[in-house]
């Protein structure tokens, strides 16, 4: 299981949790797992999220690997100017 | 509205064109003569991207009417190099990376060439005030000012 940290604004959509454990080997599976555990997160994830895995911000790629002991943070989708 | 027939000299060549009385010299250069080196950044004389010289005097071509060019001598960025040989300012601007996007560059080059003709030995402050009518949003002016000062020094040495 991978522990995923949510930004606290998402707590309301994740039944009050700011950490969610999911079964996942990739970033894509992390996101699928989150929606499965808390369907309320669907809209926020569809709106665009990035995922920080062990400090590296994965802006959009779903295929990046995730280890069971990885530090995983959900972040809002990065863009720039 | 009937058009006006204009005969003028541009970069040393005699040119004739018909223009609407409302058209600016910049419109004529760009849309009628295909000389798109002068740029329209504002249309109100604030940005200097359309700088050309009229009888040797630096002007914003967006503030001059096309009809007013009759009988005058216009030079634009297209007339700055001699064949393949760049003007020393052009060469130095490339070497110093005194341009990033390059949209203001033709106007700044025309303006600085006019400055150096008037004042071959300007101080940094004089260059900065002379160029205060030419906006550049990319560079912070640092490399532009250095390029102008160094070109002026080179040209003084060469003359």
């Amino acid at each position: 299981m991978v522990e995923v940290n949510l930004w606290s604004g998402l707590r309301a959509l994740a039944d009050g949790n700011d950490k969610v454990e999911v079964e996942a080997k990739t970033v894509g599976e992390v996101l699928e797992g989150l929606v499965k555990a808390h369907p309320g997160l669907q809209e926020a994830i569809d709106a665009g999220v990035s995922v920080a895995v062990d400090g590296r911000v994965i802006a959009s790629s779903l295929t990046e690997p995730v280890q069971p002991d990885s530090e995983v943070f959900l972040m809002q989708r990065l863009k720039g100017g | 509205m009937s058009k006006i027939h204009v005969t003028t000299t541009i970069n040393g060549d005699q040119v004739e064109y018909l223009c609407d009385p409302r058209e600016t010299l910049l419109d004529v250069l760009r849309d009628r003569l295909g000389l798109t080196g002068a740029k329209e950044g504002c249309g109100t004389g604030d940005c200097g991207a359309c700088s050309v010289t009229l009888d040797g005097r630096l002007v914003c071509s967006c503030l001059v009417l096309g009809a007013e060019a009759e009988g005058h001598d216009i030079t634009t960025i297209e007339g700055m190099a001699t064949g393949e040989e760049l003007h020393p300012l052009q060469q130095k601007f490339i070497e110093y990376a005194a341009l990033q996007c390059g949209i203001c560059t033709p106007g700044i080059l025309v303006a600085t060439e006019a400055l150096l003709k008037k004042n071959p030995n300007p101080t940094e402050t004089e260059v900065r005030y002379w160029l205060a009518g030419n906006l550049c949003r990319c560079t912070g002016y640092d490399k532009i000012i250095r390029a102008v000062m160094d070109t002026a020094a080179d040209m003084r040495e060469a003359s």
Partner: protein
Amino acid sequence: MALDAQKTNGFTQVGTRPNRPDGIDKVTGRARFGADATAPGMLFATIVRSPHAHARIKNIDTSKATALAGVKGVVTRSDFATGLTGENWNILENVMAGDTALYDGHAVAAVAATSALIARDAARLIEVEYEALPHVTDVDKAMADDAPVIRAGAADKSVPEGLHPNVVRYHESGHGDVEAGFAEADLVIKDHFKTEATHQGYIEPHACLATLGGDGKGELWCCTQGHWNVQKICAALLGLETANLRVTASEIGGGFGGKTAVFIEPVALALARKTNKPVKLVMTRSEVFRATGPTSSTSMDIKIGMKKDGIITAAEGTFRLQGGAFPGAPMEFTAMCAFAPYALKNVHQVGYDVIANRPKQAAYRAPGSPMAAFAVESVIDELCNQLDLDPIETRLKNASKKGTKASFGPMFDRIGLVETLEAAKSHPHYTASLKAGQGRGISCGFWFNHGGETAVTLALSEDGTAQLAVGTPDIGGSRASMALMAAEELGIPYDNVRVTIADTATLGYNEVSHGSRVTYASGLATIEAARDAVKRLCGRAAAKWGIPEDAVKWENGCAVPSGPNAGDFDPLPIAEITKRMGATGGPIVGHFEATPEGAGVSFATHIVDAEVDPETGKTSVVRYTVVQDAGKAIHPTYVEGQYQGGAAQGIGWALNEEYIYGEDGRLQNAVFLDYRIPVASDLPMIDTVIVEVPNPGHPYGVRGVGETSICPPLAAIANAVSAAAGVRLCELPMSPPRILAALEKQRDG
């Protein structure tokens, strides 16, 4: 992506400063920008814009306009696709108003005619009947209970109950216990800050030339930071097949984020479709100000607690961003960047995305971050003043480094903040003496940077030269960086690489040139494409020599046997291989298509000396030094240029630039004379120090450099003003009237 071969030294070309490949085009007027294109039979278009901040559009009568000789077509909202949802709907709504004009300058119709003058005359003949509605342009007023609702139902699910419907998105993040942290502090400072919207201010107005036939096939030429994005959005807004619209990026006269958005291109295409002729559409400067770009305006509350020794015990920020009449103000970045430079046990940040009757905000260089730095770094400066601490030492004590839990959640990888602070501390500027009336300010800044979808091809020619096709428009000299990286890998002269910005039909999707991604992502792609080509070159040599491919390596532009056991062959130069490539297996082309995900974050520290004239309230910046981590500077001169340009834009934002709205909700300063960007005589030379802490996610260690440079100036100048004149300005811009008012208040005690 695992980078098994990071190269951090031994470069032969990277790090040198050659002339840019497009230099001559750009100093002779030959380079073709957005407005420089023509087509046979071309029409000229003009857009009709709302003079109201908020109004229902009751009727549009185009009969007088269409009756004018030379007018070939008029379009309104009904000429665009229907049934759009999400961001596509928002973009269409902004490109051409539907039932309601949402801001002064909102497009309501457009006309194409045989000349620009006729189009302008025709636009005046289009009669629009409006019913004015109540409006609001200020962020705090837009959130107040009595504010008019700009668009019911625009809020998403993130917004807690009980907030005004103009609050459309909400962000909250942080960790630890801020209340406990504040209780530990020896001094807690709390303050309120406001910043006005500023415009990116690129000198080239938006411009395009569109062709679209009855067969649904189109060509579009435009100045943009990302032509694939333009292609995708225009196809959606016009109901076209994406592949049938080919978009070519012109040279781009500045963007800074403002040309990541789409404004006029769908309008030109709609007119081209309607008239069956090429249509050229160029914005005026006042249209650029009224209807494109600006940043968000902000209202922010910051509270920071500090021990006497300078350790920050807790930090809290509330960030309200007004982003125009559409969702999307980058408040989450404001919140996430605010405290990123500091290692904090207790931190909490809240963001509100607020809509108002203003143009849709667009990205501007590190969107959202400079405002946060202004507020946070001002409070840190005040804490240092009151606790009598050195501003750099205090920042060093709290600085984020590898392994720090970032204020936005995850742990930092290798970062260079400490290195920029150390370099600033030892820079002669920091200890230089000041004249009377001058003050010195310090600030740090942070930006995430970005990778994004990237495709590059590198095709070798018969003579051993290389044609590199990239998909990211060259905004500030990136062709030079790309050519350096390709030349480095191939071992050929820099001048033997020709870099082209390819159109949408000839490369895979490339994300917009944003997020400081070009030298990072297109650079990584160029290096990988070159390595791919080298692999093929080695294969040809191996076949010629009759040895295994892995027994050949690439050195100084030649294939050579990889060791004594591989055999004894003379080095085979690139041109010898490419000369015969047609007969030895066909053209040699290297590729890269992927989404690099290793953009390293970046930090900067700025030092500025300012002088305040007590009579006029005018602030002069007398000395400026930028210290920033570039990871690895590919072409140091252009890195310096990014540092200087960001600092200059930040100086304008701090001192002069602002959107001024009247009581009527109309923009009052939509020309460069009144919206004053820095001119040459306003600025000093801007010194730069390039710090290089390699980014683990790039083959040479590159970090993006374009955006971070605009983050520190706002606060650095506010701190210098405070040091020079003893007044703390919490509202931007620090224009002479504001400074005079603050000085007066100080005198009155």
